[in-house]
């Protein structure tokens, strides 16, 4: 079986897939059904996979991390005479996270990958793929997340979204532990 990664799609066996990564988590409050439309089957997509990747932080590191985030946000607000609305919102979010952590909540790093697969037909494949891209772009709006195709790394992103336990951050040139400390 052969597979071929392209710049913005991944061709494997008799199908073609596109994988998106979440580049913007929902802002503000979301209900438990916010992902319902994104998860539900869609007529334009033969197979759709939504993978949520969680990396829980250890308790000791979590406390340090939230405190550091809060200090950073506080510093941004304090360093300007007229702080921007965004800086103020970040400060509120950091304070709330710190409060929740202090009350016993855990801290988790999460990411989301969305893979749409269409069956490769000799004549209609490009159209089907375009329809699938349009469908996922629309669904991202209803889920209040920002999605961006993983350009240039469609094969590894596809593999990372499979339930096989592939953790991409540990395979990078600069390991996760090092980047977390930066």
């Amino acid at each position: 079986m052969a597979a071929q990664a392209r710049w913005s799609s991944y061709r494997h066996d008799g199908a073609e897939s596109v994988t998106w990564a979440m580049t913007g988590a929902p802002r503000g409050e979301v209900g438990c059904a916010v992902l319902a439309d994104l998860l539900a089957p869609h007529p334009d997509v033969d197979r759709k996979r939504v993978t949520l990747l969680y990396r829980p932080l250890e308790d000791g590191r979590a406390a340090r991390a939230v405190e550091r985030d809060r200090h950073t946000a506080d510093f941004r607000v304090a360093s300007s005479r007229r702080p921007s609305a965004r800086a103020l919102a970040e400060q509120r979010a950091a304070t709330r996270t710190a409060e929740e952590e202090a009350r016993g909540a855990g801290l988790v790093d999460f990411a989301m990958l969305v893979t749409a697969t269409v069956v490769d037909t000799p004549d209609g494949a490009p159209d089907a793929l375009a329809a699938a891209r349009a469908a996922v772009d629309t669904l991202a709006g209803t889920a209040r997340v920002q999605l961006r195709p993983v350009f240039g790394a469609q094969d590894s992103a596809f593999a990372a979204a499979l339930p096989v336990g592939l953790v991409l951050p540990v395979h990078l040139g600069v390991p996760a532990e090092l980047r977390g400390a930066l």
Partner: protein
Amino acid sequence: MRLRPGRLRVAGEPGARGFAGPGRGAAGHLEAAPEWRATTVQACGLWPFAVGTGTPMTGVPLGRDLLSGATLCCDPVSWFQRARLISTPSAFVLGRPGLGKSTVVRRMALGLAGYGVLPLVLGDLKPDYVDLVDALGGQVVSLGDGRGRLNVLDPGETAAAARRLTGDARARLLADAHGRRQATLSGLVTVLRGGAPPTDREETVLDRATRLLDDRSGGTPATVHDLLQVVRDGPAELRAVVVDRGERRRYDELTEALEASLLGLVDGGRLGRVFGGPTTVPIRRDRPVVVDVSSVDDARTDLQAALLLATWSQGFGAVAVSHALADAGLEPRRHHVVVLDELWRVLRAGRGWSTGSTR
């Protein structure tokens, strides 16, 4: 042919990122998905199980899911045996008239027949299943006025099967058949009396009388006629359980009601044309079977209920025989899917069915 790992070689050695070359799987660039930090209080908001999952591809294909378009497979035997989704192999189909309850059951029965499970349709009132079973090469048993008779005292294949068994297995099978026959008899009496079950004394008389007949008959099964004659004769064993204090007149008084009810089951009685003689076609246990009772008029609810009840008893008896022989290693193990269509008719016809009819 099995591929041995050593034989499957790809030319060249893989590099750090896989085999180089088009289509061979080397990953040129890795990019981890951007991560977002949140407390567990907030991260659970992106609830990943907001929509249901698909169903397992196990069982008879029924059709497509209306929402997702995915194939839906469902039947009680496969979901119990292989998919392990349900804890008992049974299904109850409920729906408004004309929406396809019987069609679903037909489809399940047909699919299960393909899996090697024998459909056993005990009482087809429409008929919905006769053509299906006929096409499967099964047995169509017609019952009704002038169509066919059913002798509820006939143990069917139980007697022949019991002769092939020994010890406990034989005793169990015979006791099982006796209990089922007893329940059917008292069920028929209940139908004749418009819903009132026989009294304790009458139950005992029936039990003792059928045992007496078993001892007497030398091969040909007794009929309701013989049962009535035994009750009329009043042998010593029966007079003892009736507690007649040695007076024949008292015996006659106490068994009068039972005698009247049994008269309804012999020729000339209300249900006599169906139950008054020897069984015309016995139910087989080794092929699909449908018992066609569609010739009975819908207005005769008593006959319908009595027929369904007696048919269930005979059908479950055939299944019990099959299991007993398979347990003893005398026959291959057979699985049956028993279809009880139009259950509500029997439930409406009288009380006491839950103990009397469902094995």
